């Protein structure tokens, strides 16, 4: 059934048009910065009139195999596919990227940057990220790193950062993040006209689109939801199986787990993925300066690759619990990619923490290959059935 929201069609169309648009812009002298990982601030890229594109796709086993020739089979499929994208050099965004920016949050992605530089001749800029991100010295280090990184971008662009430009880019991205956050509320509401899957597509459309045009589309989408959707209120609705998705990245192109859950009649109502809602939350840049951007990025929802030793005050888990309640989720599917250590190593722990809060929890450990599809589907089906039965009792 076709979604009645016109803006979703517009967004899809805009994404389809974007590669050609980028070609035109590049022909006119524009420069594209493709970035990978979690902590590269687009504020800096935009303020230098560069075009940010978030690189990376998933779900294509052929590209994974291709990438494995350059990086190893002990790396997760996401980074292997990124390397495969560069090796194949057919992805329009990879081809468009004049500079690849990589932050060292997930260390496998950092290695990916090294491989890309060496084998595919791309200019790569690395942004260091402190492991002890929550300490004053970690914050001080990241301020220095970001200044250094900003210097590289200035050199690359041939321009200097100005307070005015920074203020504008900060405002633009703040607008994007808050509007996406709002859309997440709409998708989780009763009788929502937009699904979580469509919302994830909208988020990921923002990896590629012109950010100003993207914000306009987001505003348009919210206006349309306000007009056409009865409510943005969220209730438990025990007749549904409301699933929250957490864990490893689910990038554009990877819809394996999502497709399975949908085929089983479950409704996904939220996520804390680094390819979904997490980067939109808690980014509060207090001033148009590089230091303020550094502080804001370190203070947001932490990535699983950054270790934190106190379970009770872990902000990633606190955010996860908060979102579960916000979206009235009934259960959690924790998706982990093979060799994605930052999230896989936390699987059992997260299960214990969330079960103590009363949330059923299923870890699905998988890759992009289809060989385990039925095994994953069987486990997911049993889980959905379990939650459904539980809901019947609750109801």
């Amino acid at each position: 059934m076709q979604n009645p929201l016109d803006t979703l069609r517009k967004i899809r169309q805009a994404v389809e048009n974007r590669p050609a648009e980028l070609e035109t812009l590049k022909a006119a002298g524009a420069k594209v910065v493709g970035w990978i990982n979690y902590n590269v601030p687009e504020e800096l890229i935009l303020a230098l009139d560069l075009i940010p594109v978030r690189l990376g796709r998933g779900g294509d086993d052929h590209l994974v195999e291709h990438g494995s020739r350059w990086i190893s089979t002990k790396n997760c499929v996401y980074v292997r596919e990124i390397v495969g994208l560069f090796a194949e050099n057919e992805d329009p965004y990879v081809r468009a990227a004049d500079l690849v920016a990589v932050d060292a949050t997930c260390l496998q992605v950092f290695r990916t940057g090294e491989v890309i530089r060496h084998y595919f001749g791309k200019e790569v800029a690395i942004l260091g990220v402190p492991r002890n991100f929550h300490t004053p010295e970690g914050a001080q280090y990241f301020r220095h790193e970001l200044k250094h990184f900003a210097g590289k971008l200035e050199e690359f662009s041939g321009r200097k950062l100005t307070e005015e430009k920074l203020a504008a880019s900060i405002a633009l991205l703040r607008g994007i993040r808050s509007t996406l956050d709002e859309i997440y509320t709409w998708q989780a509401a009763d009788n929502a006209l937009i699904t979580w899957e469509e919302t994830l597509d909208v988020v990921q459309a923002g990896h590629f689109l012109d950010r100003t045009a993207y914000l306009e589309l987001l505003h348009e989408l919210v206006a349309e939801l306000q007009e056409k959707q009865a409510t943005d209120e969220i209730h438990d609705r025990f007749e549904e199986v409301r699933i929250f998705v957490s864990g490893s990245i689910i990038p554009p192109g990877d819809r394996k787990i999502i497709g399975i859950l949908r085929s089983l009649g479950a409704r996904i109502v939220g996520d804390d993925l680094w390819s979904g809602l997490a980067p939109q939350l808690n980014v509060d840049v207090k001033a148009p300066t590089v230091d303020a951007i550094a502080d804001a990025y370190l203070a947001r929802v932490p990535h699983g690759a950054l270790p934190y030793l106190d379970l009770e005050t872990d902000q990633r888990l606190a955010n996860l619990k908060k979102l579960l309640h916000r979206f009235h989720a009934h259960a959690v599917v924790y998706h982990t990619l093979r060799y994605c250590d930052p999230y896989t190593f936390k699987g059992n722990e997260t299960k214990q923490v969330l079960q103590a809060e009363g949330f059923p929890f299923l870890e699905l450990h998988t890759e992009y290959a289809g060989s385990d599809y039925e095994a994953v589907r069987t486990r997911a089906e049993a889980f959905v059935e379990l939650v459904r039965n539980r809901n019947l009792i609750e109801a």
Partner: protein
Amino acid sequence: MSITTTEKPIRKLFEYPERLREAFIQTPGITFGNGDHVTASEIWDYMTLEAPVRFPHSFDTSNANQGRLSSDVEFFGGIKRTWFSISLKDRALRAHENGVPLVLTQGGQTMEPYYAAGGIPLRPGLVMQWARDMQEGLSLRESDARGVEILESGRNRVSIDACNQIAAHAAIDNGVVPISLVAPYLALRCSDMAYLTESHRNHKRKLPMHLVDFPIDQVGKPWAADLVATELRKLVVRISEFSGKNVTDDDLWQNIRYANTARGLAREIHYLVWNAPELPINSSDLGGIPHLANDFMGDPVATLQLLELIRDEVKERILRGVRGAGVHKDPKRLFICGSCVGPNQQNVERAGGYCAGRDDSWNLLTLEVEEKGDPYQALAKSILSYPYEQPTEKRAEWTIQAVRDSKAKGVIFMYQWGCNYQSGVSRMISDIVKEKTGLPATFIEVGELGRSEATEQSENRVEAFLEMI
């Protein structure tokens, strides 16, 4: 359910020949930092009478034994180094009883701050071995089975994707070994360590933890040194909370001097060996030196004496034209890259090869801490210059020099199953080395870190590589 077997295979254990006793006991003993002295006679008795009974697996002579004792029974420095290593268990337990904090670290990092703060640092490999040895009298198979049991308990608790070093964390978590604090440097060579340390926060045993940040892509960044210097200060304070020691800058300087001297001695030994007309010691004896020089095995003072003894003995052997036991005439020298794992050295020699060096351990020896200014800053600057931890293309350039220095004829990059961080650049380093030296280079994945058996697959591949050379 325990998978430890009870049947003891009948296998002859390695023995040091009695005919050498007299000469051995005439050599100097070792004096520890606390003034205790062990005579050569006591060392001989330990290695011939006590240790074979307590740790028979170490004396197993089968090819499968990854940690087989050096067959060079006339290399007395090697025997003493082995004694120092095997007896670490007793020293560590004694230290623990005396209130000395035992600290789990990362492999491939400096240890000066730990000793300066009154602790004993132990890398995962040592803890894994120690955990197996907490049950004595085990054959090789029994020891291996015990190690696997500990390993799998960790995987069961954390993740099946973890590399074998999880066995060290599991041993601590299970209370097999009395570690006081887990406090590694992070992002050095390994990404698992951060997540494994973090995983202790949810375990029943509430274990103190501390992380020392090591920034990557650190070249030419003074703020990276500032961060590490601060991190080292905090580390020392944290350890001193356990040791009760009031740590001064002089304490750190003293340990920096120990370490500089030890690394210098180990470098000297390597160059003596590499440049000798006949290789004076075998791969096992050479391969044990870097870890000794970097880790100190619980006692810096004793370590320095051992290194001096070894250096002098190597010199003397070169003068006499002695070739290390088991070494072929003009063997094909291999340089090994990658962390934590390496080929079975004795099997390499049997196949006509020689393990001339390893980048991760040789890298440790290249460190020279400038002995002036603030000791934390000096140490921070120095460790940020670890060649092994540089951007990979730069690291490969350094590796090429090490390959040339060691006169290697082939390069093998080995990584352990589950290692994301080193495996990711195994091909890149192999390719760069191959391209710039013209030497054959390959990369091999193994699954045997901390294992003694089931190593045939990797041995076959190493032997095939040697054949090709």
